[in-house]
């Protein structure tokens, strides 16, 4: 009896504590989202029907599913995300491990690794376009030294998407590095001492101390990176603009174009909803995989 009342009090406090967040969220985030879903069921597909609220059922959703351009962009988004996530997770971890070792000027070097995160994406775009220019850039000059023709990077239909994904990953690296570093510093130093006494090498320490310790952090980072990988509008728009042709046009670009250049808001909303559903499914699968892994 007494236990239950404590429980009831706990629940009440719980609701009170989450209320401010939930109210702000419902008013400023959730409502526009629901509105967006509703737009997908209306017929706001030309400049003449911007305020139209005629219910058209699933017409927009079906139109999107039948549209080859949508599936092309969908494929591009998936490829982009896979490369972005793989690069960011691997590079973030490796750089954090390296930066966790002691060496002269470590603080300054760390700062250098964080700077790209705050640098304006326009600046990043300009510099990489110059570096990766197929005929005049320094990167392909190195290829030519070895008698090879370097790839077209951002201008080649095959390479543009992966290149953009890696550059975007490079710009976002600091977040993963900082998070991994913070977790690395939580590892009790005596664990290393024990490992040293037992004569463990660098790789063994990584394998048996660092990785197990960092698993929760890495899982959390993976979720965040997954979500961020779909917020790629600024990066793609700045680096390739979706080109050459449509070879790097991702869903976020398609949505922006459809909504703001072509004024097809209902189609754009439907694209957003379908793509969001896909992301949610991927994330569910991922959460499942995580719980299976953790209960192993």
């Amino acid at each position: 009896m007494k236990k239950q009342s404590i429980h009831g009090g706990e629940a009440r406090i719980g609701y009170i504590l989450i209320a401010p967040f939930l109210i702000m969220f419902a008013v400023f985030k959730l409502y526009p989202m629901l509105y967006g879903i509703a737009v997908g069921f209306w017929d706001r597909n030309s400049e003449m029907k911007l305020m139209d609220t005629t219910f058209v059922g699933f017409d927009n959703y079906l139109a999107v599913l039948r549209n080859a351009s949508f599936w092309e962009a969908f494929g591009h988004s998936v490829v982009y995300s896979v490369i972005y996530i793989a690069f960011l997770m691997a590079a973030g971890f490796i750089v954090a491990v390296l930066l966790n070792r002691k060496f002269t000027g470590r603080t300054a070097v760390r700062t250098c690794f964080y700077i790209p995160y705050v640098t304006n994406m326009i600046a990043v775009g300009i510099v990489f376009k110059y570096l990766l220019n197929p005929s005049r850039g320094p990167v392909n000059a190195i290829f030519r030294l070895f008698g090879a023709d370097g790839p077209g990077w951002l201008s080649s239909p095959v390479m543009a998407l992966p290149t953009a994904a890696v550059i975007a990953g490079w710009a976002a690296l600091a977040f993963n590095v900082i998070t991994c570093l913070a977790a690395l510093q939580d590892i009790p130093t005596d664990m290393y001492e024990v490992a040293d006494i037992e004569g463990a090498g660098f790789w063994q320490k990584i394998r048996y101390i660092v990785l197990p310790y960092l698993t929760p952090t890495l899982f959390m980072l993976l979720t965040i990176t997954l979500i961020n990988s779909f917020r790629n509008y600024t990066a793609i728009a700045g680096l390739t603009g979706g080109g050459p042709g449509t070879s790097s046009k991702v869903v976020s670009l398609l949505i922006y174009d459809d909504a703001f250049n072509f004024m097809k808001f209902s189609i754009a909303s439907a694209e957003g909803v379908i793509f969001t559903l896909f992301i949610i499914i991927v994330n569910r699968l991922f959460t499942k995989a995580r719980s299976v892994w953790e209960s192993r």
Partner: protein
Amino acid sequence: MGKQMNVKKTVFTAVMWILALMMLYPFIMMIAISFRPSGQAYQPLFSPGIIHTLRNYNQVLGHPNFLDWYRNTVVTVVVTIMIRLVITLLAAYAFSRLRFKGKGVILAFLVATMMVPGETTMVPRYLYFREIGILNTLWSIVLPEASEVFYLILLIEFFRSIPGDFTEAATIDGAGHPTILLRIFIPLSGPAIATTVLFSFINIWNNYLDPYLFINNIETQLITPALQFFQEQGGANMPVQMAGSSLALIPVIILFVFTQKYFVQGVASSGIKG
């Protein structure tokens, strides 16, 4: 043996420094471009015939609204981070430490909404903000930014990592939840709060799309989209924008330098290791 170790260490240090310079290159390039006339913006770093000029900085600093943009941005960032910290800390505590009905469902729902790309809700947000009268004010940036699920998850994960014995001891002493949150969780969460502040700061400072959409008056604009006011025939006035970006970066870099120190020393002494 010792000598070999030394060589290895020197090589490692050198490699790290080279990597660091590579990371820094675009930043250096940004600074370099900010001192050039726009006709030479795309030239390599060291190329002959480059003219250096302070005109771009004059143009940015001489703009009648530059201080407005700077002030607006600082105000927006400070207010957002404060509201965000308060409501997120409370909610994170509840989600990580309290049992109540529907907790899992609510959290799963919040996480699911994180997946909605901002592009899809731009128009509804615009219409809605206009209706409630916050369009063209800084509130249109602050209020939607306040409840960011990402930081909620960050703090929840962090609170979960705090060992249970801390709170058990406090509960036995008769401390209520507010006391536990204020006296135990928040002091222990230095690194997580610093991370939240730091990343909030950068994200809001560099936010382009929202202020671009929701603010129309030139004197109410924030610094990142406002730099896009510097245009010339045919496109962006690159050097002036780079000069503006460099000026806009100063507070972010200062904050970085401070929090980095905090990460190096603060994390170790925060007592999380238990």
